[in-house]
């Protein structure tokens, strides 16, 4: 999947992540250079929304990574899991920019705002801080419709980053 360019970069990122990850971030699996799984936790205990919760992220890399952003979603169930699959093996954090199917609306992950100097670690840290700063126990306004009708992949959705404050 990934090009040699992307592979070279991901190799280096992986060596770094295997040696050490920032607090609250755990590398779960990186079996190849197209899909990695990481867990994140919110470290701020004063935020009741995310206490004692661990969220699983799936990074999918294209051949153009890191020129183009990776696709990042919160996983809702384990891949190749139970059959029939159990809904919500993993929790999806409550946040006005996170849909209940795990799709994240964050400008950093959009082509326009993405910079190739970002990496897996910095995206995890950004998501951590996005959650930490949030006190609203709510989903995006059109969550129900979006989750029901969305058949597209996150990269093909043009999000409107209407609210920069959250």
């Amino acid at each position, binding site marked *: 999947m990934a090009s040699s*360019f992307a592979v*070279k*970069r991901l190799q*280096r*990122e992986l060596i770094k992540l295997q040696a050490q990850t920032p607090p609250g971030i755990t590398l779960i699996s990186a079996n190849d250079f197209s899909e990695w799984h990481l867990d994140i936790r919110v470290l701020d205990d004063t935020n009741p929304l995310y206490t004692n919760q661990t969220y699983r992220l799936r990074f999918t890399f294209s051949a*153009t990574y*890191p*020129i*183009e952003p990776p696709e990042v979603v919160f996983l809702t169930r384990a891949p190749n899991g139970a059959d029939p699959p159990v809904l919500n093996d993993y929790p999806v954090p409550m946040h006005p920019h996170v849909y209940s199917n795990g799709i994240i609306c964050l400008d950093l992950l959009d*082509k326009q705002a993405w*910079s*190739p*100097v*970002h990496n897996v670690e910095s995206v995890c840290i950004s998501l951590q801080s996005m959650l930490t700063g949030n006190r609203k126990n709510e989903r995006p306004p059109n969550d129900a419709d979006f989750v029901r009708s969305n058949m597209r992949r996150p990269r093909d959705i043009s999000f409107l980053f209407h609210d920069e404050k959250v």
Partner: protein
Amino acid sequence: MESEDDFNSARSTDDEMMDDVESGYSDDDFDDLEIGEEEGFDAHDKITATQKQSYEVEFKVWTPKDIDEAQLRLINEVKDVLGQSPEATAILLRYSRWNREKLIEQYMDNQAAVLEGAGLGESNSTEARVQTLTGFTCDICCDDTSPMTTFAIKCGHRFCIDCYKTYVNAKVTDEAEAARIKCPADQCNRIVDNKSMELLVPDNLTDRYHELLVRTYVDDLENLKWCPAPNCEFAIQCKVKAKELKKVVPTVHCDCGHDFCFGCAYNDHLPAPCDLVKKWVKKCEDDSETANWISANTKECPKCASTIEKNGGCNHMTCRKCKHEFCWMCMGVWSEHGTSWYNCNRFEEKSGTEARDAQAKSRQSLERYLHYYNRYANHEQSAKLDKDIYVKTEKKMTQLQNHAQLSWIEVQFLDSASKALQRCRQTLKWTYAFAFYLERNNLTEIFEDNQKDLEMAVENLSELFEKPTDQLEKMKVEMMDKTAYCNKRRIILLNDTADNLRKSRHAFWSNDLGA
């Protein structure tokens, strides 16, 4: 070569045109200029070629070379005013969306802010672009090979040159960006300048890059638009503004042969104004007509309001859902019918009157729509067939040349006839959309007469056109006459509607019921 002449004569008026681009137009020179292109190649249209008709608008076709030169000229003018290099001036102009006055004014007001905004700020280091460094780690590929060739623009965010190239390459190919590519560093708004781009863009992409740069010029100017025909590289300049579109239908003719509306880029839709076209097209595509069909062909159960289509059988209806029994004819309760089964004579009963009224109204509006739609669709279909006719015409022309020993120039009347047919059908088609929205007043009758005359002229010519090849030669004069007549009728109709539109003498239904 004819096109060469056109080009040269167009060049001589370039300076005027440039002024127009920059400073807007005055209405005075609108009428002075004449138009020859529209009918210029058509021998039978000579009568109309000399003067501008009132439905025609002033426009000019720009070749890619014209666009390039106009940009260069503007850059050269502005660079002296601003005291900047041509590269920097180009960036500034693209930043200000090619608005010279606005740029100069803002630049004089607050030079630093404009430079910063355009990504040319002086705040950071100005070290050389390419440097070979030891002990450097590229933040994109995380490579730290020593020594490494690196690259940075003025902001000083340095990356290895391969990553920089890959980044720029991806922006140009995948995102079609050229003039506003930012430094790859996070949150850095510095724009990669022209000179750096020339260095970074690989040879196989330079053409694409320059094309994209040129595009910003046309994209940013309100009075320039790309010809929407596939693979056409020309742009059209026309001064009709968006707010005038209710009164003018600015149809332009590109040198590639494509006729389109400058206002909405839709195919030639004379005489209907853009907003009617948009409404009409939507109406025809919309499934609002499905709803219309439903209301004309179905009734609702008087009790549970389920929609029911009666597709045969007697008037005694039993609703499948609520088991309510009623009469299809009068919508009244079935039990009240007594013994007069299968023959409802209760028409005057109040219980069904209201339902029937609603039905009648909907049916009437549907029929009115269908009247116009069928005629519109018919001409659209015929216009499509015109494409086949055109191919046949060419064949006929060759046949005639062999068969009757006619020269190429002597068979051109067939080509003219075919073109006239296509053009007139296109116009006729839109007259029906126009008429659908047209509110009835004194002028409607004149419009309808014009429409009828054109339609008859077109059908007469069309009939002639389908005659077998061996008869065509004898009908040459008749055909030429009828072609000229068609063109004349079209111009009369278009001039009439254009005049009335300009003077707001036509009124249109605001809803599409036409009642």
